[in-house]
């Protein structure tokens, strides 16, 4: 059932041609939420009445010849740290109890103008400070393919909602990998655009230096539609796939391949073999200080998060989940001089990723070193070693939050247990990245 899901773009063509109505599609999404979400817990707020009204309006406009483009009438969701006027923005925290957004965030306004139908606000790791969604005032999100596992985080509700066919796409945030990690764990496409490309006004912040907003969906074509809309393009244009033969991709093996689950590594190498057969040139590259990324990340992201939360840590500490509160409290001890050192590290890594991309069309590496993680686990086995869940899940994605390069994940096969693996593509500019992704998307997946 899950494998038969159609993409946003396919659905859009059906709505635009009149083969299906937005109202009928939206109703099916709401039915699936009612049937499936008690087991998955993807949604914090379901906007059933509002979605039905938006869908009816979309059908009327399209029938009258006033199509707003490919998102018109398409049911989507928003991670519940993105303001949508008239609805709560909980950030999955009791700290924000009683909050109701007075206006749309910039991204919600752009999606609304494009005619998207908002079916609800999705669950997340509290304040996006974690990668499993276990620390949420609304309870953990469960992986739709195996309810004992996490769908990854922090945008886990978004990924689970798409995989459960409760919506056709979702908008998430990514400060250390929070779009790419759940997308990889759920076999979806997820894009972290270039830093600063999508406005974050009206989004609950975590780290102003590393926060990014982007889409989770089912295909590169869907990603391009959503990315252009989020970037303010009122009429998204199709992305033209690059010529496959002669594409030149760098594969950064040092650091990035030293801690990989054997099945994740195998799926990636198989995808590389298919790409080379198709004429793609893969070259090993190095990012000399990649191993410094975790320390750089901690000393920049966490003080910024602590600054955002200082007031409520003092006034209502009991309203945070225990783990998130402790992590924010820890962050308050980081010294200013070490924040400056971290920012210097950001410059070093940025220069090194630029150098690795020089003369190439992108970098290719795994997204998440392990398959979807069992809920409640503190560590995960990676080959012969036991690694902390937080560190291993962020390991391959956070370097590109530090550098700000656009990065996206695409599915590249499954483990023997049927859990998805993801391949990460990193580029210089987001539209170029999407052109390359469009070329390699089908080859990454085994037939």
């Amino acid at each position, binding site marked *: 059932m899950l494998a038969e899901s159609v993409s946003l773009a396919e659905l859009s063509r059906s709505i635009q041609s009149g083969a299906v109505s937005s109202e009928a599609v939206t109703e099916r999404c709401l039915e699936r939420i009612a049937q499936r979400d008690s087991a998955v817990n993807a949604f914090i707020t379901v906007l059933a009445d509002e979605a039905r009204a938006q869908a009816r309006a979309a059908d009327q406009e399209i029938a009258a010849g006033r199509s707003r483009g490919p998102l018109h009438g398409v049911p989507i969701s928003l991670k519940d740290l993105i303001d949508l006027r008239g609805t709560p923005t909980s950030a999955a925290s009791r700290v924000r109890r009683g909050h109701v957004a007075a206006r749309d965030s910039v991204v919600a306004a752009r999606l609304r103008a494009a005619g998207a139908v908002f079916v609800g606000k999705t669950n997340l790791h509290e304040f996006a400070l974690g990668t499993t969604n276990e620390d949420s005032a609304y309870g953990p999100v469960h992986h739709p393919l195996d309810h004992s596992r996490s769908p990854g985080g922090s945008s886990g509700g978004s990924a689970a909602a798409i995989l459960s066919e409760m919506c056709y796409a979702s908008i998430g945030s990514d400060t250390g990998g929070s779009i790419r990690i759940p997308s990889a764990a759920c076999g979806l496409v997820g894009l972290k655009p270039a830093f600063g490309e999508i406005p974050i006004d009206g989004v609950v912040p975590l780290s102003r230096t590393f926060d990014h907003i982007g889409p989770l969906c089912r295909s590169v074509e869907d990603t391009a539609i959503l990315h252009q809309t989020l970037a303010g393009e009122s009429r998204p244009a199709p992305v033209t796939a690059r010529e496959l033969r002669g594409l030149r991709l*760098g594969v950064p093996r040092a650091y990035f391949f030293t801690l990989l689950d054997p099945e994740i590594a195998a799926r990636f190498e198989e995808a590389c073999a298919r790409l080379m057969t198709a004429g793609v040139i893969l*070259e*090993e*590259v*190095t*990012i*000399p*200080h990649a191993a*410094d990324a*975790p*320390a*750089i990340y*901690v*000393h920049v992201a966490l003080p910024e998060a602590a600054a955002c939360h200082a007031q409520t840590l003092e006034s209502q500490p009991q309203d945070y989940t*225990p783990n998130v509160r*402790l*992590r924010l*409290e*820890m962050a308050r*001890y*980081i*010294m200013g*001089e*070490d924040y*400056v*050192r*971290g920012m*210097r*590290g950001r*410059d*070093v890594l940025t*220069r*090194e990723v*630029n*150098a*690795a991309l*020089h*003369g190439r069309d992108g970098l290719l590496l795994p997204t998440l070193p392990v398959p979807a993680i069992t809920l409640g686990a503190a560590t995960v086995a990676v080959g012969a070693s036991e690694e902390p869940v937080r560190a291993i899940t962020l390991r391959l994605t956070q370097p590109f939050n530090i550098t700000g390069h656009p990065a996206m994940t695409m599915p590249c096969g499954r483990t023997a247990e049927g859990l998805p693996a993801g391949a990460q593509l990193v580029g210089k500019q987001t539209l170029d990245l999407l052109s390359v992704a469009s070329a390699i998307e089908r080859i990454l997946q085994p037939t």
Partner: protein
Amino acid sequence: MTIEEWLENALRDADRRELPALKPLLEGLAKSTAALRAADWNLDVSGELPETPPEHAR
């Protein structure tokens, strides 16, 4: 302030604030801070960044 001095003060403060669960996190943070300060590009924070070769292909 050395990392050792910082950690000693931070642990004492965690005790004062009756947050014992914070202490393992602070110990982990101290290791991360030590790694950050030991990075070769950080040995002279006031200096220019080291040159990055334009090409890293092997």
